[in-house]
């Protein structure tokens, strides 16, 4: 019956997931420090992309100001650690609660006054820019001079979340894995169904009893909180926090590139997208430097983005899935057949 068909796909998905993370684990053990630090960023943006994807890809709410939540997470970790020596674990939790509440407040205010769709997206930019300017002038958090974490001592301290490049790689890997598992878990729970319904047609969902006001606030605050967790770790990895980079528009765009390139609303999209976009950016930036063509990375970036949107509008990951299904056509067809017989 249908279950058999599902189980086949299910097994393929699990297998794919485990293989990907096993390979990524090996990369962490074997690769050189440059590749490792590059991949750390890829994995962190995978996680951030998943957080953003939860909001748009599943919940249907567009944010172009995710830097706000990333920044709140980064500053929570930074201020507590640098100023008071409090463990980043506490900072991460604080950041998540803070960003979750800020996200919920923005959402509440916005939807209370019927600001939605693209206007809500504009509001998220406004909120992020407001925070960036505020933090730029706020002496206590270092203003424009930023915050600096003390140089790592080399030893690994899990209680303080401090360690070497490889340590942070595995932290980022764990986050990305959590993101994948969490996204899968949410997609399959009633929240996933209800949120997708709300994304596809809000008034039809309401007519079916979905309390969309509450659900929109919930999805946004969850996305904000997870983005803050990613931001906290990003700050630790970079060793410094500057308002213009951690809360700037550029970061908001970097967050959404992964899922847009990789595949909106899919579990693996953000990973595939980040894997494609970030190394390319670094490579082109290095190439641009050696060829003395400043801005080559940005041009290439633009070209690649436009090509992806043009040729694979739903992203790279769905295209890969389609390809796999095309190759596997005979067994799939056979399963459909057997299903019909059993019915």
């Amino acid at each position: 019956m249908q279950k058999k068909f599902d189980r086949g796909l299910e097994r393929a998905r699990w297998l794919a997931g485990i293989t990907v993370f096993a390979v990524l684990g090996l990369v962490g053990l074997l690769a050189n420090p440059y590749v490792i630090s590059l991949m750390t960023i890829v994995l962190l943006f995978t996680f951030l992309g998943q957080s953003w994807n939860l909001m748009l890809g599943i919940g249907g709410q567009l944010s172009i100001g995710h830097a706000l939540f990333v920044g709140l997470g980064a500053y929570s970790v930074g201020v507590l650690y640098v100023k008071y020596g409090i463990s980043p674990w506490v900072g991460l939790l604080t950041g998540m609660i803070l960003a979750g509440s800020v996200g919920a407040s923005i959402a509440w205010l916005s939807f209370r006054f019927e600001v939605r769709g693209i206007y809500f997206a504009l509001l998220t930019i406004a909120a992020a820019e407001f925070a960036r300017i505020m933090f730029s002038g706020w002496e206590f958090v270092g203003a424009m001079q930023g915050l600096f974490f003390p140089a790592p001592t080399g030893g690994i301290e899990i209680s303080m979340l401090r360690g070497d490049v490889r340590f942070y790689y595995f932290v980022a890997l764990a986050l990305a894995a959590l993101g994948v598992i969490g996204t899968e878990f949410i997609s399959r729970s009633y929240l996933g169904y209800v949120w997708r319904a709300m994304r596809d047609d809000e008034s039809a969902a309401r007519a079916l009893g979905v309390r969309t006001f509450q659900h929109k606030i919930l999805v946004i605050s969850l996305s904000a909180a997870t983005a803050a967790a990613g931001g906290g770790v990003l700050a630790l990895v970079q060793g410094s926090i500057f308002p213009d980079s951690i809360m700037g528009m550029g970061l908001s765009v970097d967050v959404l590139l992964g899922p847009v390139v990789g595949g909106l609303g899919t579990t693996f999209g953000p990973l595939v997208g980040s894997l494609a976009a970030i190394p390319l950016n670094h490579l082109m930036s290095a190439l641009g430097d050696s060829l003395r063509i400043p801005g080559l990375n940005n041009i290439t970036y633009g070209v690649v983005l436009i090509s992806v949107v043009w040729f694979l509008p739903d992203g790279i990951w769905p295209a890969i899935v389609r390809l796999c299904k095309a190759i596997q056509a005979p067994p799939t067809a056979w399963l459909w057949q057997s299903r019909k017989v059993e019915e």
Partner: protein
Amino acid sequence: MTALLEVENLSRSFGGLVAVKDVSFSLRAGRITALIGPNGAGKTTCFNLVAGALKPTSGRVLFEGRQIDNSPPETVCRMGIARTFQIVRPMREMSVLENAMIGAFSWTRNVSEARSKAYESLESVGLAAKAQARTDQLTLPDRKMLETAKALSTRPKLLLLDEVMAGLRPTEAAGIVGVLQKLAEGGLTILLVEHVMRIVMEVASRVVVLHHGAKIAEGTPGEVVADPKVLESYLGAGFHA
């Protein structure tokens, strides 16, 4: 018999236009009632007022004795009134089964419970075999039935159907009539907004006729078609029952 739904002196205007004017009627449990009228008679407005999608300018809507006209659609749904849309609105990116599951989440958070309710709803409208299809693979009558199945998954006491038969061929409509009759036999109360007169005669036990926003007649299908006011305003001089 007590009334499941009571509509009392309901009015709604849009700016200067009075779409529904002082309409009252009541629905008895377990029956199919039809709301008919020519284009622009205020049927859909009336329907939306009952479903909570619009708020009345004056008047009340009572469901099981509780006033519902100030409640948002999701609350009305959770109280036991489910609706369909005149223009079918499937959730495009979700399968037929998933579409039918959404309504069930108004009373359960258990995904497999929702799934079995969805199968049950699809079964009762004859769509179970297409559960895994994408919604854009469905024919128009199937999409209309999917709308009904989605509504049924909310476990309604009252089902509001907005022109489910519009745009269908007679044979397709006949299939839907069968489904509705079976649902009513199962104890469901149905209010149907309909244009196709022949079907209303066949399926409804009571008919409410609107014209220019006001109720001009109410009764059994036989009584209504014999009413000279109805003949004149709605059916035209050429209609002979």
